[in-house]
């Protein structure tokens, strides 16, 4: 599913690499926490997965493809198989919940009939059944994040990338979101989640990878958050 071979990433005009010689493998259907303090390279790791950045050294394989060899015009095809969720939800404020989810299907040219059928289904799945016509501004933070997850999942991606999805939510709401991500993981979708939330990591007991100053310093199955910050 994901393989990093001695991957380093140095941004232009910076001496210190953001990622340094990282090698790892993530299997299909895994749930992986990515932990580490700010500036440890978590975001760079996720950006490499989405091919928003290219590795300076080493090879990144995602969904069986070497991203260095993937031509630019094929990148959108790859991204359609990867769902993304962010701390700030990234919803369109002037579109309803249903339209926000439908947007993801419209812009990749899916037929209207399919969109009309799938959108309510996926909203039901994330626990927002019947809230199709609400505006994002009328929803709580947790509900907004559920909309974002619905949008990321509506295309049935093989891989879901979540960048601190609970960063803006209170602990109780976070638990709900984690349950949802766990359920999505059980459908066979690989989940990679960067987080600072110690409680969640300790509770879930999933594989934990820790980055420190760009190096992979720990890779532990059924791990814990493991450090104080």
């Amino acid at each position, binding site marked *: 599913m994901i393989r990093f071979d001695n991957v380093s990433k140095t941004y232009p005009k910076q001496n210190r690499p953001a990622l340094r010689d990282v090698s790892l493998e993530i299997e299909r259907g895994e749930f992986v926490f990515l932990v580490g303090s700010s500036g440890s390279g978590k975001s760079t790791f996720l950006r490499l997965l989405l091919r928003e950045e290219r590795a300076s050294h080493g090879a990144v394989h995602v969904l069986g493809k070497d991203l260095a060899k993937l031509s630019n015009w094929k990148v959108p095809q790859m*991204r359609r198989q990867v769902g993304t969720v962010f701390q700030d939800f990234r919803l*369109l404020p002037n579109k309803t919940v249903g339209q926000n989810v439908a947007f993801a299907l419209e812009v990749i040219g899916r037929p*209207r009939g399919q969109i009309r059928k799938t959108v309510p289904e996926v909203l039901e799945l994330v626990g927002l059944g019947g809230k199709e016509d609400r505006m994002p501004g009328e929803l709580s933070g947790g509900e907004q994040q559920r909309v974002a997850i619905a949008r990321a999942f509506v295309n049935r991606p093989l891989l879901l990338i979540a960048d601190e999805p609970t960063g803006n939510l209170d602990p109780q709401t976070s638990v709900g979101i984690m349950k949802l991500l766990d359920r999505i993981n059980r459908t066979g979708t690989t989940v990679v989640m960067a987080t600072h939330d110690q409680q969640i990591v300790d509770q879930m007991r999933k594989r934990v990878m820790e980055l420190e100053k760009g190096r992979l310093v720990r890779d532990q199955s059924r791990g814990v958050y493991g450090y104080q910050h």
Partner: protein
Amino acid sequence: MRAQFVLSEIGVGLRRNLTMTFAVIVSVALSLGLFGASLLMRDQVNTMKGYWYDKVNVSIFFCNKNDAETAANCAKGAATEQQKNDILAELHRLPLVQNVEHETSDQAYKHYKEQFGDTPVAGLVTPDQLPESFRVKLKDPTKFDVIKSAFSERPGVEQVQDQRDTVEPLFRLLDGMRYAALGVMGLMLVVALMLIVNTVRVSAFSRRRETGIMRLVGASSFYIQLPFIMEAAIAGLIGAVFACVLLVGGKYFMINQWLAKQIQVVNFIGWDAVLAVLPLVLLIGLLMPALAAFFALRKYLKV
């Protein structure tokens, strides 16, 4: 491809940047109007050249018996029949020459009277004051120099005159106006392009949320860029339509209604010339802003 979705995006974009869109339309209309006008001016000059070069010819004037004191070439008195016949024979031998007409002093007097009629000056001129001449029509009117160098130093020839000299200044004036129009057009074009680039930049910035999401969910770059490019193309096309209106209006009001009535000796370009220019104006109006938008997007819209 969902046409309706793309169309609604374009509509939103054009409305959001209404003032910028308006500026783009005006500058495209003006620059393309000038572009079309300069093309038409070239057509006009060519029409006039064709018309007048057909009528003008090279005149070889012979010495008159009165010219001995006034013209340096004629110090030896009037041209003899022998000299005239030699030149005539030689002219007929030149492949460049289409035909030669002989104008006697009497004929010259008649033309003169036609031209100046009963004005006081006309009364002072007598036939023997006007020089006899050969009116030479050339196959290529621009080859005047050949005739001039061959015959101007001949005994009995007073001077060789190219009648084109009398119409050339007018053509030079028209050409000058055309280049001025092209220059102004160039400046307007730069303004139009800069406006388009800026419009696209503002547009891309105000929609960065949408485009960011489109990118994440895997919309193709073509799909993301299309609304921006279409916006520029539509604004450009509207500008081009205005330019066409300007050209058609210019032809109707300036030429048909005004100039053609004032100046009868000139034949002006017809509607066919104007209609031939319009598709080009429309095509440029459509493609140029689209291209400008495309290159601007490479800079301002990460895909």
